[in-house]
């Protein structure tokens, strides 16, 4: 028997401001619906992060929470151990920013050292990016999918040489209004569409699961998700933000 796929939702009360736990719910259910066992570990600040998870999730949060999360993750160390063992990290919004080399907080743009898992840096952008976002995500095999979500961030992110964009922006701001959105480096994926982005984007959810399990998953037929995708993509293309 294979062991259950362990999903670690890291520091939910610090980095879970936008319903980010939804990503854990989505991943868990998509395994369960295929008859694959999983274990969801909700890690709160003060608890040890498991070193043996298959997927780690980081969500959105306020400035102080970002600083607090970086310091706790560095002290704990298990996220790094898990990634060394081949785990996948999916980080959104503030969680994406803290994975970078540096990010800034507060009115005086204090520079904070990030986790260094992605070759990206983040600083305050000219204006806050708030609204629906639509991007085109390309897989390694050349196939693409549209990603629909909601972005809400004051920081703009610049990619260094070692990180590749996750997707190209169709509508929205993304990393820094430069046409790129998110970052991929090895098995670490960062993205701005926050909260339950995987709920609207089952292809991305299944991609994370396939990366983490090393298996190919059979498709799931969920017409309500397809209908929601059509609605949101249509609304954004019509100009609603």
């Amino acid at each position: 028997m294979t062991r259950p796929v362990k999903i670690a939702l890291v520091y939910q009360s610090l980095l879970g401001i936008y319903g980010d736990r939804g990503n854990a719910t989505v991943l868990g259910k998509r395994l369960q619906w295929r008859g694959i066992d999983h274990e969801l570990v909700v890690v709160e600040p003060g608890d040890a992060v498991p070193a043996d998870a298959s997927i780690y999730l980081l969500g959105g949060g306020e400035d102080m929470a970002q600083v607090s999360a970086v310091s706790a993750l560095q002290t704990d160390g298990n996220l790094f151990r898990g990634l060394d063992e081949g785990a996948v990290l999916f980080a959104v919004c503030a969680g994406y920013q803290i994975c970078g080399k540096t990010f800034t907080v507060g009115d005086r743009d204090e520079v904070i050292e990030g986790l260094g898992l992605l070759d990206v840096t983040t600083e305050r952008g000219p204006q806050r990016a708030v609204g629906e976002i639509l991007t085109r995500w390309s897989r390694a095999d050349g196939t693409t999918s549209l990603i629909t979500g909601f972005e809400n961030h004051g920081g703009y992110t610049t990619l260094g040489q070692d990180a590749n964009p996750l997707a190209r922006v169709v509508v929205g701001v993304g990393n820094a209004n430069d046409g790129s959105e998110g970052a991929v480096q090895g098995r670490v994926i960062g993205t701005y569409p926050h909260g339950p982005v995987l709920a609207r984007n089952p292809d991305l959810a299944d991609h994370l699961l396939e990366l983490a399990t090393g298996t190919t998953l059979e498709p799931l037929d969920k017409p309500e998700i397809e209908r929601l995708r059509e609605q949101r993509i249509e609304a954004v293309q019509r100009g609603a933000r």
Partner: protein
Amino acid sequence: MCGMAVPRHRSTRFTPGIFSRFRLQVATLAGRAAATASRLAGRGSGASIRGQVMLKLDPSAFATLLAGRRIACVSGTNGKTTTTHLLTAALRRVAADDEDVVTNADGANLHHGIASALSEHRRALVAVLETDERVVPSVVDKGDPEVLVLLNFSRDQLDRHHEIKALGRGWRDALTKAGDAGPVVVANACDPLVVWSAQPARRVVWIDTGDVWGQDAALCPGCGAVLTHRQVDGRGHWDCPACELTQPQPDYRVDGDTVSDPNGHSWTLELQVPGRFNRANAACAFAAARIMGVPPREALEGMATVTAPAGRFATTTISGTSARLLLAKNPAGWAESLPLATSDPVVLAINAAAADGRDVSWMWDVAYEQLVGRRVIATGPRAQDMAVRLAYAEVEDVAVVEDLATAFAHPWLAGLDQPVDVVSTYTPFQQLRKLGGLA
């Protein structure tokens, strides 16, 4: 940085003079005309447009209208409207005439909404003002309130209000500046950000509301350390391990329907509004009423008369179906309202207009899993988002009917012997009130 500070109002204290009074009269008349025109055009009560016209013609009207009255302000993320109604009812119980107490009962709680309500009741000596969190500093600054009720802080419409802590900082600054001339604050001791915001007040009456929402209280607002939450005698207690901030000893404490007061007396709430959350609201209103001089029994009798503040908890008929309306504007509101919705089926009405918050991510922070085994009718423009959330909650019997009026004609609703419970975000709630003839 994911978040960013909200800009604050700057203001100076204003002394009304004879000329300003004349100007105010002109502004009031112009505002009234605009309100009448708006009503005739079928665009609501006109309260907001009245206030906008007035404040445009006379920017000092806000301070002038507040001057010379005894003022109680009610603010916080959730429960403002209901608490304002409860406190108003308590005060009216001892007033010679209802007209002696003015309130913005329709929930128009920004500067122009408050100005509008006050302008229509120039002689009322007491004002109970539902006050938007962003407006509290300027009311403290210009209005010299006697009592300020601070209910709670939770994430709400994050596409507009990026950091709730910035709101708390505004309150702290205003209370610090007001010093000994500031209001007595009635504050929820269970909410760390409320406690931090209320601390500088000259006097705080702390209410142990038994609040259960802790998801927005991970970090100490004072120093940024991770707060500890533990249970003491079956009640939550929070504390900062790194600084002095800790849950204060309460003056009032809510236990079910019982409220104990600082004198060791226990009082029984007899409310017509449902739920634990409203008992917490009532305890805050009760404390505020007593500070304003209302004897406890009269305060309780007054509060017992409140049934459906601005349509909340009202039962009405929509498309031939009897429906009870519950409002939920954010995750904390849903956590309180959803358990009150016990009918089968239950209706969930969802939109993401500006007043609802344009981002529906919050629905993943609400435990819709509790609806498993019941039928759900999802309605409103964003019903499909709810359908996906319910699918992941494994709620199986879900009907999606985007049009509100059509949803209430759904076959599942035929022949129910109880009203169907409806939980709604803000803008569908207002439409449902209209469809039900309540507004």
